[in-house]
């Protein structure tokens, strides 16, 4: 059996705050970060709730160590820099300079959060000087390059974009490269900032609930969007032990499959999600009874929760391990969802707690199962499954195990 890949560092920023501790506290106290809109400039400012990070771009710049004002960094790049800063508070940066490492970022709309404000000016012959700085920030690799350059690193770099499963895919690429001996370590994750573009995109698809989202509830009306970023350090277990690193969790299984069914909707029977979870279990050498908690994708859209719920029921039976969606805490953070919920899964292992599925009231008609609604402490968790599914039929499952 190949040597295990472990997680030895975590950096995170979301509507719940910055850093692991803020997240543990909020999750434990059922404090949601999804609130009325305070920062996003939209005509729906009084209509929707969002998982916003309550720091302006200037505040984020200051936190990341950049000059405030028009510094050419989009909010997407700033969130990525903030998550990296948090990671580097726990990981010696020299470790990333000493040996070959990969920096694998993920993103869905690049610097759209800025570009949608300045696009018409950018097209004019006399674009304002302050906007020129942002002119080429729409592509997804922008935030990747910004992080690498800010910290003066020279890694193998990659940016992935598979919609809402994007940063889960970063974990898979990083682990594969480490196992093949191409790099010693990998920083994996992703980030997305809120934009009118994505809010209106999902709204035009009738996928947004104006009130708090209700994953796995019969009366769910759609998702709440959020923003955030997260990065994790991956390395071989033997390398982590040799340097005396604190091992947070083992990445014991992963799978990436495709529904091959529809451009945006999952197969209604949950076939794709079922197969993905099954493949991840097989890779980890685990059986369904070994999984002690499932951090579901649970967007609270009609399609996702029906397909994912059926898939969980089909694979785990009518008495599955406790499962919950943590999106009522953070909103759906798109490219960041995979890494943020992967971190929540590791947090659940570390704190031995089952994170509740908030806002749930009524079991779905088509299901005999329902999510965990109460916080459970001393939960005896050994292996946690984390799902991320996206447009384009993209399915990813990750399994994190107690070290």
């Amino acid at each position, binding site marked *: 059996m190949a040597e295990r890949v472990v997680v030895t560092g975590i950096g995170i920023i979301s509507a719940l705050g910055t850093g692991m501790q803020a997240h543990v506290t909020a999750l434990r106290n059922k404090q949601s970060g999804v609130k009325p809109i305070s920062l996003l400039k939209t005509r729906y400012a009084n209509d929707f709730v969002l998982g916003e990070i309550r720091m302006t771009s200037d505040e984020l710049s200051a936190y990341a160590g950049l000059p405030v004002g028009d510094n050419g960094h989009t909010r997407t790049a700033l969130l990525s820099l903030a998550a990296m800063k948090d990671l580097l508070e726990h990981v010696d940066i020299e470790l990333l300079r000493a040996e070959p490492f990969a920096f694998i970022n993920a993103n869905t709309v690049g610097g759209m959060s800025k570009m949608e404000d300045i696009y018409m000016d950018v097209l004019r012959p006399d674009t304002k000087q302050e906007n020129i700085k942002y002119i080429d920030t729409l592509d997804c690799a922008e935030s990747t390059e910004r992080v690498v350059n800010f910290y003066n690193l020279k890694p193998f770099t990659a940016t992935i974009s598979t919609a809402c499963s994007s940063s889960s895919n970063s974990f898979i690429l990083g682990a594969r490269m480490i196992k093949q001996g191409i790099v010693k370590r990998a920083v994996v994750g992703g980030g997305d900032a809120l934009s009118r573009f994505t809010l209106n995109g999902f709204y035009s698809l009738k996928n947004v609930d104006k009130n708090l989202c209700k994953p796995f509830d019969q009366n769910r009306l759609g998702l709440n969007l959020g923003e955030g970023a997260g990065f994790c350090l991956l390395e071989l277990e033997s390398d982590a032990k040799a340097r005396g690193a604190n091992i947070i969790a083992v990445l014991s299984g992963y799978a990436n499959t495709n529904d*091959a069914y529809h451009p945006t909707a999952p197969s209604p029977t949950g076939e794709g999600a079922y197969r993905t979870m099954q493949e991840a279990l097989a890779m980890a050498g685990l059986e369904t009874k070994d999984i002690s908690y499932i951090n579901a994708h649970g967007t609270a859209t009609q399609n996702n929760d029906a397909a994912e719920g059926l898939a969980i029921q089909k694979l785990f039976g009518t008495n599955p391990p406790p499962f919950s969606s943590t999106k009522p805490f953070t909103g759906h953070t798109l490219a960041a969802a995979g890494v943020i919920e992967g971190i929540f899964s590791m947090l659940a292992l570390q704190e031995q707690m089952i994170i509740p599925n908030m806002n749930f009231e009524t079991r779905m008609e088509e299901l005999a199962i329902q999510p965990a609604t109460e916080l459970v402490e001393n939960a005896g968790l050994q292996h946690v499954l984390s799902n991320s599914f996206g447009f384009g039929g993209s399915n990813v499952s990750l399994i994190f195990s107690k070290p």
Partner: protein
Amino acid sequence: MTMQPLYIISACSITAQDTYNRENFLNPVRSIDDGRLFVIDPDYTKYINPVAIRRMSRMLKRGITAGMRSLDEAGIKTPDGIIVGTSRGSVTDMEIFLHELIELDEQALNPAGFIQSTYNSVNGWLAMLSKCTGYNQTYVHRGFTLELCLFDAMLMLSEAKEKKHLLAGAFDELTPEYFTIRTKINYYKEQLPNSLNLYKHDDSTGSIGGEGAHFFTVSNDPANATSSLRSLAMLQKPTVAELQAGIDNILKENNLDKEDIDVLVCGMNGDSRTRSLVDTAINNCSANTTVVNFKHLGGEYDTASGFGLWLADHLCRTQLIPSEVTCKVGTSASVKNILFCNTTIMGNVSLMVVTSVN
């Protein structure tokens, strides 16, 4: 560590020349004076049904068609995985949705542009049409986008214990608005030359615009292969010395001397900022080596290296080097070993060794 070579079973490129039909793709040679080499759109109804095609943007049709044709030519119905790259996805769709958002003030928007501008939408369609429920991945990393797809494919075939076929490719789209935006960051030349004269203007910054879709069916099984991608290196903004070291390294990895290189496929783009890098690559050639280039035919864009890899494979297939791509004639009589050096506007360089498979 050595990775599994990628055997290229088929290659399909949709570019500003008639590469889609391959035979006589340079007859006639298309050239332009406005700095925008838009592709020749083939008949898209061959691989997409008439109901679906009506709602599709041209980039979606183009990516799907290039991918499906590559599988078709390889005789593969369902690949084991699909790995696609795009620096900017369907730019037209993004523009449509963004303009509507601004002009309609966030009201009554049509979601089509939003959905189709999602970077992995071509991935999803290719999976549906080829019924591929396996590995599916999308890379979006500027000038290394196609390279990351090829790298992932190599990694996957190195991990594989059995024979596998993967569909790997990349696409990007040029639009008038995107051209305007990139002109402001000196991506394109201020004085646009005729595309065929691009290299005569390498004393100024920038290049000419282009677009394309390039897909390759690759395998760890050499059966039916025309060429193999043996090594791949991505050099981030290398100095001349770093590029030289990179070239030395990739040749050594493959036990090749300079004299063994029959063809250098050079991604020269006429940008004065990358001239020293291009010169470095050319200086590595021996008298045997024929130097060819392609950006005067397809333009510069983040996934333009797809045209270069298509051309490398094409030269292996045909063993003929068209004069329209040749900038220096070497003495070697056959096309066996090819060094492909792609330089981008941002100064990144990718290196590939491609060898013909008989």
